């Protein structure tokens, strides 16, 4: 019954999305009748509630393990721990699409409920766009990915969940990324709404900004968590592989980062109108392109979703409708938007324009690298593109970007002096030069990007806290703290990346039981290798003692696991986190002479990468809260 109820609710929600679209379209056509148009608000709220209830129905089906539902039978098992039963609801294609549309509709409802500052007609147009987007995804669910489909006869037991996905990190990784993607859909709707009513100005920017900040913070968390998961679960010792799916989440993040900065220019100085609207469209386009790349199976990747060309074509049709429509609207309407305020070449605005340009270049580099294999394949060639292209191309531009990031916050709006900027940057630059000289003397043979990265991190780290200098910390607004924390996080993450690349020690050794090896400052002793048995796997587990100098030894237990069904070999890396880095051990095969292959990494300061990521997200959240707090007293539409 519950499955039918869930499906019914989904159809009802889709019906309301149709109503939402036509109410909006009608209101925009007959401009004098706002009362009927405002009926769109309760409709949007009801649509959000229905979608939410439908998702709850799916969670309930997974909770009680109703095996007569195809999706539950295919992805769950009655003996699974509760957390994985529930996360199983979105650990698959259909359920994750339902989660997507649920968040989308709830966000639409939230706009209808709380947004009171933009013009009434812009609000109606925004909700209309949001309804249209939701409608496309409802159609996708109902016609090609029904999560509530029954299975007759129903099996006594389910198939279980892929062992790699039974991980607490993975229970939360997709919802976080989705919150980010969907937040960008709201931003997109705002942009379309503002284009339709020619209302591109500071009020629109202020209404859009919290959504940009929120989406961006969630994307940051999602990417950081995904990177750490790949690092410890795949056992390859790397934290970023330029895999298409990683790129699919990085590209919307890059666009959102650019948007985050340009929207502030629009809100504060009423400049960059057309560009901000364009970025809002691009940011959501990148989320859609990412979804398409992942779900259509057009690119080979470590993320294996159920691949289906029909679904691919469906998402492609949605892409055409939304992105094509928005870009056409942009071309038709943007010339009627008045040009915004002007600014001088040395000013905060100019620095933010530079930030946007550099971010766009990186976005282009990543986009081209990700899509090039598809283009080549269409021409009958098989190519894969990896770090040798991405690292130097994206890395060098990123360093420039981070230098610009160091200077930007120290500039005044509208006009500033170059000499003044040089004086404000003197201390950070001196620090950076110091690091540069020290690194070149102490470690002359590390790669160019590494030493440039370390010095840039020093400049950016020092410069990022400079806005707090000689300022009452108590009186500093929360969103300024947010900026400082996020920028400092960028410097921290960069330092981690550069230090790991520069000073990482990697060794592949063959050690007999009782034998020793060295990696970096550590002496590693292989005590014993013993077989262990898990619920659905067997493994060989090594007991390894690592000791630095005369310090206390730490014990690591890497495993080489063999899963029975389906037969898969995985290696479970053992990682020890110390203050100044991580020791990472993978157990390999045994040689014919009885010695075990061990892959050892000493990764100095590698944890800074994810710590920096968390700081960046935290900065976003601080800025979001700070903005909402500051703007709560701005005049509402009804008072104007």
């Amino acid at each position: 019954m519950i499955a039918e109820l869930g499906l019914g609710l989904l159809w009802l929600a889709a019906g309301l999305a149709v109503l939402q679209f036509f109410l909006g379209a009608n209101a925009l056509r007959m401009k004098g009748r706002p009362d009927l148009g405002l009926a769109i608000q309760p409709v949007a709220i009801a649509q959000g509630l229905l979608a939410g209830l439908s998702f709850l129905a799916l969670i309930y089906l997974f909770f009680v393990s109703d095996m007569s539902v195809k999706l539950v039978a295919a992805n769950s098992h009655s003996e699974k721990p509760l957390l994985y039963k529930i996360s199983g609801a979105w650990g698959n294609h259909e359920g994750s699409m339902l989660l997507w549309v649920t968040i989308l509709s709830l966000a639409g409802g939230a706009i209808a409920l709380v947004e009171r500052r933009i013009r009434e007609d812009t609000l109606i147009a925004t909700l209309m766009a949001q309804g249209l987007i939701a409608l496309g995804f409802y159609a996708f669910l109902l016609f090609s990915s029904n999560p509530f489909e029954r299975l007759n006869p129903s099996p006594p037991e389910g198939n279980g969940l892929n062992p790699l996905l039974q991980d607490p990190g993975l229970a939360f990784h997709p919802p976080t990324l989705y919150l980010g993607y969907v937040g960008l859909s709201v931003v997109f709707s705002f942009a379309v709404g503002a284009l339709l009513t020619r209302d591109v100005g500071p009020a629109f920017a202020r209404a859009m900004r919290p959504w940009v900040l929120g989406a961006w913070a969630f994307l940051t968390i999602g990417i950081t968590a995904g990177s750490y998961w790949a690092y410890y679960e795949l056992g390859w010792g790397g934290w970023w592989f330029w895999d298409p799916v990683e790129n699919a989440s990085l590209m919307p993040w890059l666009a959102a980062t650019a948007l985050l900065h340009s929207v502030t220019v629009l809100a504060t100085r009423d400049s960059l109108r057309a560009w901000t609207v364009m970025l809002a469209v691009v940011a959501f386009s990148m989320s859609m392109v990412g979804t398409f790349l992942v779900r259509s199976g057009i690119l080979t990747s470590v993320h294996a979703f159920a691949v289906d060309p029909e679904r691919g074509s469906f998402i492609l049709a949605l892409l055409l409708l939304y992105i094509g429509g928005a870009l056409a609207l942009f071309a038709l309407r943007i010339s009627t938007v008045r040009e915004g305020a002007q600014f001088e070449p040395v000013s905060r605005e100019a620095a933010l324009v530079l930030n946007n340009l550099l971010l766009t270049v990186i976005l282009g580099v990543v986009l081209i690298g990700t899509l090039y294999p598809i283009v080549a394949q269409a021409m009958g060639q098989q190519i894969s593109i990896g770090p040798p292209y991405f690292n130097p191309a994206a890395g060098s531009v990123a360093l420039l970007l981070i230098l610009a990031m160091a200077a930007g916050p120290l500039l005044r709006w509208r006009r500033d002096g170059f000499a003044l900027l040089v004086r404000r940057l003197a201390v950070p630059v001196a620090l950076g030069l110091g690091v540069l000289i020290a690194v070149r003397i102490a470690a002359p043979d590390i790669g160019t990007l590494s030493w440039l990265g370390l010095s840039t991190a020093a400049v950016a780290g020092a410069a990022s806290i400079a806005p707090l200098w000689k300022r009452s910390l108590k009186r500093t607004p929360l969103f300024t703290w947010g900026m400082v924390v996020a920028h400092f996080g960028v410097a921290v993450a960069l330092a981690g990346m550069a230090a790991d690349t520069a000073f990482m020690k990697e060794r592949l050794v063959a050690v007999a039981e009782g034998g020793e090896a060295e990696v970096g400052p550590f002496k590693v002793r292989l005590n014993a290798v013993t077989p262990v048995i898990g619920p659905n796997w067997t493994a060989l587990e090594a007991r390894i003692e690592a000791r630095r100098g005369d310090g206390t030894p730490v014990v690591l237990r890497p495993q080489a696991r063999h899963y029975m069904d389906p037969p898969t070999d995985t290696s479970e890396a053992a990682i020890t986190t110390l203050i100044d880095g991580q020791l990472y051990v993978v157990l390999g095969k045994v040689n014919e002479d009885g010695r075990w292959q061990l892959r050892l990494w000493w990764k100095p300061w590698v944890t800074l990468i994810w710590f920096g990521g968390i700081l960046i997200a935290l900065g976003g959240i601080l800025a979001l809260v700070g903005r909402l707090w500051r703007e709560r007293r701005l005049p509402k539409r009804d008072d104007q």
Partner: protein
Amino acid sequence: MMRKILLWAPLMVFALFLGVFLRGLHVPENTTITSKMVGKVVPDFALPAAVSSHPALTSDDLKQGKPILLNIFASWCLPCIAEAPVLEELKRQGVEIHGIAIRDTPEDVGDFLTQHGDPYARIGSDVSSQVQISLGSSGVPESFVVDGRGVVRLQHIGDIRKEDITKILAALEDAK
């Protein structure tokens, strides 16, 4: 005028991507990469017997006028265990299979054959992977379909699974 064109440029770029995606969706995915070895004669080699129960293997054994399945395996390799029943099935269907054991000892190979079945006519022992590398193989298991004149017709990377049987038999048939 220039500004007009610029405004439509994003849409044009997007349309271009869309076209590529559409094309990409309908190109059937090709997961088998054609090996550089296909069409070439196997390099000359002479390997000692890997186990006393089987004769040794030289490149001349691959040039006896009859298509052969050359299987590179090792007793320490897990996928090779998974592959063993499929090789047995191929042997039942009349395929002649020669093996090359990589970095192995006679005892281990003997144990492997008694435990997991023995489809091989000859097995050479390649202790240092020299022959494996000269054949353009980088891992175990790997298999080659070689025609009666020693020319490689097919290189199969990874274990041969049940669903690959028809492909292997067809390649052997073509090699006649």
